[in-house]
Structures are given as structure tokens and as C-alpha cells.
């Protein structure tokens, strides 16, 4: 596992330049624009999701030059590979999360804006969850379809956005009172958070198992 982690770190150095450029742009947006919590949260989420996608895209480096077959001759098991990918992506998300928190607190302090802990926590937590969900979707897709996995992921995300849009537009024609949903969310916030966390955790486990199966069946 240690070897896989070190390997990913070596590859990550190749991609980290892009993330650093994003981070510089994000810093300028946060520090030198009129402060708005919405902007801060957008940049926060963007950076977290970008870092997760960057780390999962390291699979392409493993697959370069038919490298997976060589990698699997090292003292690792196929399930180690999947676990190491999650571990490394989690590590990258955690580091970027910490950087973004420092950046956010700095921006709030510099711009003399009142600190809204709850809002900051909720938004940053949500962005991490979104990143984990995307990671869980991407990993098996990348392992199964290799380069085509990215395309399938983009199509899936656009399809999900389009479906949500049309559902929300079409909902007013349905005989359901949607205003009650907001009230329900407010009344059961804690339960919903726990529910979402459980669903995401189950999703991650399923993604790991599916990825392991894909790798087991795959021939190199």
C-alpha cells in the first residue's frame, strides 16, 4: 500500500501544477473581490471537486504504456490498488480542504466579514461529499472503460443535471405541494445529514467492491 501511495505522489507532482494555478486564481477571487459567501463556497467546492477528479485521473498514468500489467507484478494485490486509490484521493481532498479552510478564514478576517461557522461548515462539508460521490462514480468507470470513463462520467453528470432541471420545471404541473419539502428539511436536519452520510458511506463501499471486481476480471 505504501508503494502505491508513493507512486501516486510521484505522478501527482505532474498534475499538481494545474491545481496550484487553480488555487492561485481561487485565492485572488476570494481575497481581492468583494466578499460574498456564495463566491467563497463556489470556489471552495470547485477546488475540492477538482482535486478529487485530479487524483482519480492518476489512473491514466498507471495505464500509460500498458503500465497496469507491470504495476500488478509488484507486491500488491488488486484490492490494494483500489484501496490505495481511495486513500490517496481522500488524502488529496483532505489537504485541499485544509488549504481552502485557511484561505477562507484569511479572506473573512482580511475583509472584516462576520464569520458564519455553520454556513462555512455546511458548504465545505457538502463539497467534500460531492467530491467523494464523484470519486466513487469515477473510479469504477475509469477502471472499466479506461479513457472512455471520463466521457461516460461527463455524460452521466450532464444527464443528472438535465433530469434535475426538467423535474424541477415539471414539478409544478404535478399534484404535489413542494413547499413542504423545505419545511421537512428544516425540521429533520440532523437525521437527513446522518442519512446522507450513511448513503455516501455505503456508496463508497459499493464503489470499492465494484472496482475490485472489475480489476479482478480484467486481463492485462
Amino acid at each position: 500500500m505504501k508503494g502505491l501511495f508513493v507512486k501516486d505522489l510521484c505522478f501527482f507532482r505532474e498534475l499538481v501544477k494545474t491545481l496550484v494555478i487553480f488555487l492561485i486564481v481561487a485565492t485572488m477571487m476570494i481575497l481581492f473581490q468583494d466578499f460574498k459567501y456564495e463566491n467563497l463556497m463556489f470556489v471552495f467546492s470547485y477546488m475540492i471537486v477538482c482535486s478529487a477528479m485530479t487524483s482519480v485521473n492518476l489512473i491514466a498514468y498507471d495505464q500509460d504504456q500498458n503500465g497496469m500489467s507491470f504495476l500488478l507484478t509488484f507486491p500488491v494485490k488488486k484490492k490494494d490498488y483500489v484501496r490505495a486509490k481511495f486513500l490517496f484521493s481522500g488524502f488529496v481532498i483532505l489537504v485541499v480542504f485544509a488549504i481552502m479552510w485557511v484561505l477562507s478564514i484569511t479572506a473573512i478576517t482580511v475583509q472584516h466579514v462576520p464569520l458564519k461557522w455553520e454556513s462555512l461548515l455546511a458548504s465545505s462539508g457538502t463539497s467534500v461529499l460531492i467530491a467523494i460521490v464523484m470519486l466513487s462514480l469515477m473510479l469504477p468507470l475509469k477502471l472499466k472503460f479506461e479513457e472512455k470513463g471520463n466521457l461516460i462520467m461527463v455524460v452521466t453528470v450532464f444527464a443528472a443535471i438535465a433530469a434535475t432541471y426538467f423535474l424541477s420545471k415539471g414539478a409544478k404541473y404535478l399534484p404535489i405541494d413542494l413547499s413542504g419539502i423545505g419545511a421537512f428539511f428544516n425540521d429533520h436536519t440532523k437525521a437527513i445529514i446522518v442519512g446522507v452520510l450513511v448513503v455516501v458511506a455505503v456508496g463508497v463501499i459499493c464503489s470499492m467492491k465494484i472496482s475490485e471486481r472489475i480489476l479482478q476480471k480484467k486481463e492485462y
Partner: protein
Amino acid sequence: MLVKIEQLEKQYPNFHLDCSMEVKEGQITGLIGQNGAGKSTTFKAILDLITFERGTIQIFDQDCHDLTREEKCKIGVVLSDSGFSNYVKVKDVIRMMKAFYPAFNADDFQYQCERFGLPLNDKIKTFSTGMKAKLKILAAMSHDADLLILDEPTAGLDVVVRDEILDMLREYMLKEGRGILISSHIATDLEGLCDDIYLIDQGRISLHEDIVTLTECYGLMKMDETQFERVDKQYILAQKKEHFGRVCLTNEKKFYRENYPDIVIEKCGIDDVIYMTAKGEKR
């Protein structure tokens, strides 16, 4: 026994592999054959990179699917069609190998890289084919493995470097209990290196001999049609028509030399065996 393959069968749409072989301790075993004969498929099956329909493969007396990390650490591998990513430097390879293999000797590896002209700070994508091949071999030999599985390790290397690498392999074998399974399309490499040779043809092992028998007992006989008519054919393995008559591969050179002194019998190399097995008419 380091490797034992028993009735391994792997089916592809246009290819069927059916192979049994062994790699013993203290021996260098060569697997030779034409391109597409099944060498790489056999190697990949041993390394658990592909599934197979039938048969068993044992490495260190363990099923190849059940090897522990410690056992896998004892195997050094060179694959013909893959290697380290183009995006890393030799320095990164050192970091990775250190993390993967507890017995990795970083100082010696670095020394060998410098000796073979591999720059530590250049990305592998800037390396020539030969440099990449050297790096793969050095990495495979760097972590005190008991078994080396080398698929076409000398491909792309010039004669001088090839000789140096072959010397390193001989030196590697000085330690007791080690073994090498090697394939190469350069037959002379294997002739001077291997103790034991398997010839694979269209997915089947068509010949298995130790190198002493191969060099001392095998020969190519050249004869005209009348000589061919009267010759005892029981030790002729394959024969082929030529403009002068027939050329025959035998594994009893001595028998024909004693009984048919008028027949021209030439020394036979591995290339001749491959050629006659592939192109000749088998008995």
C-alpha cells in the same frame, strides 16, 4: 521448484495455449518461440495477469493466485510490452522501489543506473528503447529476488550492453536457490545463458531439452534425395525440402555420424531448431 506449470490452457478466439513446464532452482530456463507462439501469454499467466481455463501454476510451491506480498517481493519481473510510466524519473523509481520492496538496494541500483548511463533526473519518456530496457532489468534485479521472470529483457539493447546484462544475470545466479525464466528472440543470448530450453510453437511446448543435449546431440543433416530415401528416419524430428535435397533436424547426431559418414551433419543452434520446428515437416 520455483515455477511449475501443469497443463495450463488458455483460449483466445484465434489462439489456444496448452503448456506445461518447470523452472528449477539453480537453473536458467529459456522459453523460445516465434512471435505469437505464446511466450508472453505464458508469462502473464504465471504472473496472474490473465485468467486461464484449465491447469495449475505453482510458484514457490504456492498456487500463483495465492502468493503473499512477501512471496511476490521475491519475484523480479521484466515484461516486454510494459514498464515504468513515462512520466517519472529514475529518482522516482528509486522512491517507489524502496516503498514496494523491503530488500531494495537503493545505493547499488543508483550505482548500476549511473554505470549503464541512465540519468537519474530525466523523465523516462526521454529515454531510448535500450535505456528503458536497461532500467527494467536493473529494477528487476535490485531487490534480492529469488526468481526472475524476464520476457524479452534484451530487446532493443545493443550487443555490448546485452553482453553486460547477460553477465549480470550469470552473476545473479551465483547465489544459491535462485532461478530465472527468460524468453528472448535472440537465440544466441539463450544459448550462452540457459541450462534448460523450452520451445513453444503455436501455443504448445514442442521441445524441451537441457542446453548440453541441445548443443551436443542436435544437428542439421543435409542430404540429397537418394540419401534421404535410404537413411534411417527414426531420429529425424523435422525435415524440409531444399534445392539440393533435404535438410533434417535430428536429436541423435552421433548415430547418423557413425552410420552415415557420407551425410553432411552441421552443428545446430536454437535458431535452427525454431526454424525447423516452425517450417519443417514434423515426423
